[in-house]
């Protein structure tokens, strides 16, 4: 469903990604783990078409090769880290959820918006609220709903719970897990939080300074058996502070 081969990305003179390759199967949940500056978010942005690719190839979803922005939108959507910055402050929830349908000329907007509110567990009466009338967790539900409006097979998750309270994080993680099971979604999750990976993902790649240092199954993570020294360092830091 996602294939990344020898991906390189440069910002000016600095190369932030060096020949990164990995594959994610349909319905799989894959995590990119690393510290800030490791390039994990840049991979997400490259897949989202938001940063220019310097070398290598990307394939996404059902289609192969180059895509228009509109075609890409049907294949992949993203949930952002900051629920306060990812919703337009002057548009109601209804505006935000209807917008992708309007752009792609899809019918039955009312039914679809209401069905999506139900799916992400938001009360229907919130439909015409503005973002500032919602809590952080509720906003993140709106952001997830927006990402699912076009029924894309792939969802990119950029630290989707790191800005949320602990108890709200559990709700959002449960929601993401349920949605994946119901809709057969493919997840690509970026995070620095290993326990979240343990809960939500099947496999993970550990990144350092723009390179993948290790790929492992989630069983290796749970058992604390990483092959690379850096992987073990990350694990120790999570467990022992």
């Amino acid at each position: 469903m996602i294939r990344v081969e020898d991906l390189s990305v440069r910002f000016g003179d600095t190369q932030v990604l060096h020949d990164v390759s990995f594959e994610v199967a349909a319905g799989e949940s894959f995590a990119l783990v690393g510290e800030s500056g490791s390039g994990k978010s840049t991979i997400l942005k490259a897949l989202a078409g938001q940063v220019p690719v310097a070398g290598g190839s990307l394939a996404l979803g059902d289609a192969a090769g180059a895509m228009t922005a509109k075609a890409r939108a049907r294949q992949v959507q993203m949930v952002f880290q900051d629920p306060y910055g990812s919703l337009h402050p002057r548009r109601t929830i209804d505006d935000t959820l209807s917008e992708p349908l309007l752009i792609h000329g899809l019918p039955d907007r009312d039914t679809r918006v209401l069905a999506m509110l139900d799916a992400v567990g938001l009360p229907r009466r919130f439909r015409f609220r503005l973002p500032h009338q919602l809590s952080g967790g509720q906003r993140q539900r709106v952001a997830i709903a927006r990402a699912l409006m076009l029924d894309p097979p792939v969802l990119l998750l950029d630290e989707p719970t790191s800005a949320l309270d602990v108890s709200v994080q559990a709700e959002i993680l449960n929601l993401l897990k349920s949605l994946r099971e119901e809709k057969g979604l493919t997840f690509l999750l970026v995070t620095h939080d290993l326990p979240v990976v343990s809960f939500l993902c099947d496999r993970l790649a550990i990144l350092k300074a723009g390179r993948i240092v290790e790929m492992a199954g989630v069983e290796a993570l749970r058992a604390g058996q990483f092959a690379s020294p850096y992987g073990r360092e990350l694990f120790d830091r999570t467990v022992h502070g």
Partner: protein
Amino acid sequence: MTTRDWLLSDDPETRMQARLGVAYRLARDLARNPLAMVGFAIILGLLLVAAFAPWLAPYSPVEGELANRLQPPSWTHWMGTDELGRDILSRVIHGARITLTIVLLVAVISAPLGLLVGTVAGYFGGWVDRVLMGLTDIFLSLPRLVLALAFVAALGPGIENAVIAIAIAAWPVYARIARAEVLTFKGAEFLDAIRMQGASKLRIIALHVMPLCMSSTIVRVTLDMAGIILTAAGLGFLGLGAQPPLPEWGAMISRGRSFILDQWWVATMPGFAIVIVSLGFCLFGDGLRDVLDPKQRSRG
């Protein structure tokens, strides 16, 4: 459930109710500011006077009796008469129409133009930004009245040309403000999100970027109204705006200048009108700014 509860409901049931709710909250906050209400009353007064000028004015604004020239204010002529024996009150009342026309036309031409230039420059950045802002800076570096003067001199005197000239001098400010506003949220994730949904650039600018710059532009335009009125009056005073016998306030002052020492009211009465209307726009604009300030928007 009262209408008020319906408007303030946290869970509006329709789009219409949500929009009315937002408008009601704005109006309520505005109504709590006494100075803004004074400004609003003045603007409302101006609108009414302009709308009903022919019925309100006791005499004709253009025909006078030469026998009655330069009469001081009295019960028959509340503001006195001018050098052609015309009733100044009637002229001031009719002048409200001209002032309002100029102000509205300038706002309608310059604000959208500035908004468009500013948002496009801010959103695209790079060479688009440099070219558009370079242009803006050129216009901005020239004093507004001088620029307007130059255009009127080129286009010829008259109200229409005065409007065009003032509008050309006014838009760069809005472009600057809109661009600055865009830069504050340009990197925001909600714009990434809308791009990822495949929206066209036109759609993003028109539906997602512009609405966020709208309130600061509206506030600025309201505050600028006073300046526009003064520029229009200045052009009129210099004889390059409205032409005789139109009762434009600036032109009236200009003509009254010759008699300022002996017949003060000829120049002073239209001067009062300019000051009061300018003040009204300023006070209302200040109030609007307080209400539209995004930090205050979140309050219930």
